């Protein structure tokens, strides 16, 4: 399957890549496209505890502001400094270099499959 098909997703248009007990999180191309040119990304500090479903940061474009939600309970192990310095990475490579945070977790909740997310965003 493709990279994107192997990821899991949330209804808030985030993708989640699971490696053991760590989840890498970003926003999908669908969300990045709706936002437009991203000009600022506000991320939590490494070490911060996060609770599933709560807002942990913001992505701001010229026209609007999107919230970043934690898809899992856990704590932030790494923040993508490159995307803070170059927010346009969210637009140019949302599934790759535009990743946002890495979170360590103890339990993974049920997330959407690629097929379920695609159905959600079908227009």
């Amino acid at each position, binding site marked *: 399957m493709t990279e994107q098909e192997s990821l899991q997703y949330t209804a808030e248009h985030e993708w989640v890549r699971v490696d053991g007990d760590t989840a890498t999180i970003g926003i999908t191309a669908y969300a990045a*496209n*709706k936002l*437009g*040119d991203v*000009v*600022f990304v506000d991320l939590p500090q490494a070490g911060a505890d996060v609770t599933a479903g709560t807002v942990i940061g*913001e992505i*701001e*474009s*010229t*026209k609007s*502001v999107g919230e970043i939600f934690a898809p899992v309970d856990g704590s932030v192990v790494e923040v993508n400094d490159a995307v803070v310095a170059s927010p346009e990475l969210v*637009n140019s490579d949302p599934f790759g270099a535009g990743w946002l945070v890495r979170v360590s977790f103890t339990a993974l909740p049920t997330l959407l499959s690629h097929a379920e997310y695609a159905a959600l965003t079908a*227009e």
Partner: protein
Amino acid sequence: MTSAADVPTSRLSPLHERHQAAGALFTDFAGWTMPVRYSSDLAEHHAVRTAAGLFDLSHMAEIRVTGPDAPAFLDYALAGRLSAVAHGQAKYSLLLTEAGGIIDDVVVYRLGDEDYLVVANAANRTEAVRAFEERSARFDATVTDISDAVALLAVQGPASRAVLEAVPDLTGVDLGSLGYYRSVVARFNGHPVLIARTGYTGEDGFELYIAADAAGGLWDNLLAEGVGLVPAGLASRDTLRLEAGMPLYGHELSTSTFPAQAGLGRVVDLAKPGDFVGRAASEAGPAADAPVLVGLVSEGRRAGRAGYPVRAADGDAQAVGVVTSGALSPTLGHPVMMAYVAPEVAEPGTRLSVDVRGTLVPAEVAPLPFYRRQK
């Protein structure tokens, strides 16, 4: 975002299929499905500042006013002295309520002795047409809403004149002699097209009014012949006008706003003879402590947006104003905002702060516009 399929009653521009083919992202604006961007807001904004952008503004309202009393009627219905506008000249004006507030801001083109074209905002079309019809009662003048028959294209940017001159089928106009806020009726493939040197971006540019069924050919020719011309959507239109310090109805202007509060006192011609709607209220003016429109600039990348509170520099909880428009300026690289603030903190250089979603960002009052093009 809505698509035309989700909102069956949403109006479509005559150019809709072309926007779809160009990959535009759409938004609902005043009941119309219009392009918000084609590629990137920033790229389209920069294109207008450095070359030229092509906007579809067919959602806007065009109202024809004709008849022997047309000049006197418009002097009564609007804030300015439209009877003094020469043939081929255009004038920015305001449609006021009896209480002196703003129903709409408009551009009026004088086409003849008894012939005017009023261009109003799409969102205020119904209110504007109704106001004109009511106010025309005792005048020998006819008000006709021709919006659905008219398409409006705007070419804006330093290369806009070269773009128009490159279209061989656009004839009957010497663009070099068409001055700012002047208009002429030219021809495109046999169709009359009103070309005006007007715009909403702070750059040199032209607005072209043509019959809706001829708009597609004009759009195609402009893009085919205009070197460096790119289609641009409503997102870039908003950042361009904000940098240029131009008000947007529903943000800086409303029925609760006096022109004088928005820095538009000179648009109300109190010296014109005869009564006009809103005269008494305009003569009295707003209260001495009424908020006034200012520009705000800040550092960093987070702009205050419409509705965000403006506070004193020390963050005192009592708001001193409210942001009406704001964005990270693509051309200037820092946040720019328009806001209504208490008159005592409206002096340029005054340090204030903007509450950006709970974070206080220091800001400073700056004169408008934020950006002026090189002449």
